[in-house]
């Protein structure tokens, strides 16, 4: 019997949701697990780093990394795993474009440490307490996986949805691999698979999700919710818009949109109306757009480290 391909799943600065997302495959997960050998998966199996270091180069068929790169240890581990793996997959929004923890890049590192850790914070000593090891250093900025190592494929989403995870395993297990750089999601915008109907094609107000129970049939943008559907890849089945929540862009922008924030600004600038266009409407248009209180956090919720480099860096 031919040896089963080895896979690894690793987490860096993530929330654990990506590891849990595999369970959403349901019984299909059992089929997948029957066909692979788990070489390393800290959420499931106790394998020490020293054991990974002893693996021969490229002995892991595919490593799925989730989480943003936040500490020096994250960086060391992904370099190690890159060396040991034939394929590396950025799994989830954090590994792909920096993710929600990437929003921390809006504050300099020192400020973050002061705010989060104050001055007395020390991690609990390990059982036995015999080691004086310091926690790994925080990087100056959160980074996407591709900022450090070559990434072969991407499974986007926060966390990745079962259909997208399924696409990855179909490809890995069949050996029918797409071209390097492939993102396992649609190239077309989410709107293409959203069942809601667009009528007005105008943005006449801006409301936040808690302020409105939306009509179940009508496009959320038409109802004033800032939905990122027009600039976001489909493939998730439009789960959020179907449930009355605007898309927040977790699958990442379409190739056509590129930078999601700039593409949304372009779209909203076209759509926004406060009565008949002209100088008489300028003040009302500004007021309408002011209701979008946090363009940065709204448009780059999952991708700040990829698209926004601040003046003078973040040191």
């Amino acid at each position, binding site marked *: 019997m031919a040896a089963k391909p080895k896979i690894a799943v690793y987490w860096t600065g993530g929330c654990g949701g990506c590891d849990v997302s595999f369970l959403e495959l349901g019984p299909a997960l059992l089929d997948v697990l029957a066909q692979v050998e788990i070489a390393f998966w800290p959420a499931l199996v106790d394998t020490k780093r020293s054991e990974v270091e002893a693996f021969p180069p490229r002995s892991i068929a595919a490593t799925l990394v989730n989480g943003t790169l936040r500490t020096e240890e994250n960086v060391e581990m992904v370099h190690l795993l890159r060396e040991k793996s034939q394929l590396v997959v950025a799994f989830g929004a954090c590994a792909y474009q920096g993710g929600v923890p990437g929003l921390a890049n*809006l504050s300099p590192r020192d400020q973050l440490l002061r705010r989060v850790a104050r001055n007395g914070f020390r991690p609990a000593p390990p059982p036995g307490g015999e080691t004086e090891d310091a926690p790994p250093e925080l990087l100056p900025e959160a980074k996407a996986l591709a900022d450090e190592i070559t990434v072969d494929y991407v499974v986007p989403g926060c966390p990745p949805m079962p259909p997208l995870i399924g696409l990855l395993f179909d490809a890995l297990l069949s050996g029918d691999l797409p071209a390097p750089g492939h993102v396992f999601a649609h190239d077309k915008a989410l709107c293409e698979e959203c069942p809601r109907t667009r009528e007005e094609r105008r943005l006449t107000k801006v409301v936040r999700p808690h302020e409105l129970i939306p009509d179940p049939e009508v496009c959320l943008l038409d109802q004033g919710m800032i939905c990122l559907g027009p600039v976001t890849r489909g493939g998730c089945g439009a789960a959020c818009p179907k449930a009355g929540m605007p898309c927040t862009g977790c699958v990442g922008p379409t190739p056509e949109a*590129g*930078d999601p*924030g*700039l*593409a949304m*600004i*372009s779209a*909203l*600038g*076209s759509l*926004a109306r406060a009565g008949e*266009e*002209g*100088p008489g409407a*300028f003040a009302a*248009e*500004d007021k309408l*757009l002011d209701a*979008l209180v*946090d*363009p*940065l*956090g709204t*448009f780059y919720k999952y991708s700040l480290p990829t698209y*926004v*480099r*601040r*003046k*003078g*860096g973040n040191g």
Partner: protein
Amino acid sequence: MAEAPFEPRVVAFLCRWCAGAGADLAGTSRLHYPPNAVAIRVNCSGRVEPEWVMEAFRSGADGVLIGGCHPGDCHYVSGNYKTRRRIYLLKKLLAEIGIEPERVRLEWVSATEGAKFARVMKEFVTELKQLGPLNLEREEEKPSAAPVLPQVGS
């Protein structure tokens, strides 16, 4: 050697029907204005994507000027209104990122307003000198610090 004084680099997107013609008039009228801008002629200010503004910054611009027709005069009826809303949002985003929103300037300049174009350029360059260089992370090699000669359309 003494360091050369800071000369801001400006990218000016000018619509061909009004602002571009106004800039041409400033030139043919021999008006004096600072030579810090590279002019890019577009059919309508409504064609200017926010992405282009950021591209200009990433490529080393310290300021971006967008010149369009006065309200009611846009050759395509409402391109300038669309741009006004986009630039309004873009400035909000820039403020959050930590880039001074004043580095983006939207002006209405008609084909007869050569003098206004010259005044806008003077004001903008003065303001950018006060703000100092942008120093956005560059995608390419840092271009030379020499001011670039204006060239309107082709």
